């Protein structure tokens, strides 16, 4: 009896040692590439939403929103890139948008992280939806609305993606939060 317990103890201990060791090794090997991926992802994302940006620096960070100021090579102010997050259909959605310097329109939007349904909710990160975001007119007192029908669409509205209304609404909520926070910060 005692022998058997000992045997089980040793076996489980050995397995867990092996497992811990393998994971530690792999973690060490992938730590830098994963961090680099995230870093370069942030950089590519900022370049995508603020074309011709050369330098960027963080000017404000709250719990859900980080605001970066973007400059071109002559250190001329180009606009702002803002990372924001909120709750989507299945989990957190994290996205980045670019503003012109007067905050009248979005220069672009990229989804950084999301757990939305592949092929449906993830379409908020695809071109047709991003175009809608770019063509929005931002007005100080009007928050971005969401409509299902193209007919009722105003220039401050976004048309929800069919089959992904919740994801679309979530993105619009994050956008509104970003606009509010950014306006407060720089004005």
């Amino acid at each position, binding site marked *: 009896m005692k022998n058997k317990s000992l045997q089980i103890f040793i076996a489980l201990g050995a397995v867990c040692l092996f*497992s811990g060791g393998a994971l530690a090794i792999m973690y060490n090997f*992938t730590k830098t590439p*994963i961090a680099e*991926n995230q870093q370069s992802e942030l950089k590519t994302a900022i370049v995508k939403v603020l074309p011709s940006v050369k330098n960027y620096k963080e000017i404000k960070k709250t719990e859900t929103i980080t605001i970066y100021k973007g400059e071109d090579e002559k250190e001329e102010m180009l606009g702002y890139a803002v990372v924001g997050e909120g709750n989507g259909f299945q*989990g957190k959605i994290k996205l980045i948008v670019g503003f012109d310097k007067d905050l009248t329109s979005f220069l672009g939007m990229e989804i950084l992280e*999301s757990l939305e349904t*592949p*092929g*449906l909710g993830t379409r908020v990160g695809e071109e047709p939806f991003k175009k809608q975001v770019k063509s929005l007119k931002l007005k100080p007192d009007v928050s971005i609305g969401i409509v299902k029908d193209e007919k009722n669409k105003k220039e401050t509205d976004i048309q929800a993606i069919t*089959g992904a209304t919740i994801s679309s609404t979530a993105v619009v909520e994050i956008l509104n939060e970003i606009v509010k926070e950014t306006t407060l910060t720089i004005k």
Partner: protein
Amino acid sequence: MKAYREFIKGIWQSNPVFKILLGLCPTLAVTTQVQNGIAMGLAVLFVLVCSSFIISVFRKQIPPQVRIAVFIVFIATFVTLADYFLKAQFPQISKQLGPYVPLIVVNCIILGRAEAFASKNSIFYSLLDAIGMGLGFTLALVMLSSVRELLGSGSILGYQILGKWWTPWLIMSLPPGAFFTLGILMSIINTFANKHKKHRSVA
């Protein structure tokens, strides 16, 4: 001949998805696009081969009372390795698959093969069995996702195949589309398999 049988059974006679109906959760969830199907299939193949190998190697040392715990620790280790690898090398795909990579841990195909095959057979046959099952799973995912991506978005692997005249069947990208496709594919395959069997028994 036995080696060939152990290898081919996972692809055809006991295909994990179409015949044993295991691992249906990722099968239904990630097959909206072919690319996701392939990535998921290969991740499962990797975990299946590694865990079958190591379980087969230590099959005589693992105390039977705690064998399930040991299997799960091995499987979870390889899943986490695959997850880190995808995150480091293919961040795009890793993002698309989202939570379904870590969820391979609870995929019944892997625990099923460990318990039913790898813990009782030699390393060579366990490897063949794992490779066959993994390929069978990948094949099923590719078939399912091809149908769903083609009808649901008119494309295969992101290339637009069907022209503007095609109205995408949205339901194919939605969860019900996965059930429809799986059911129809399964009935086609089983009808075909039954005919084949009858034909063989006559001959």
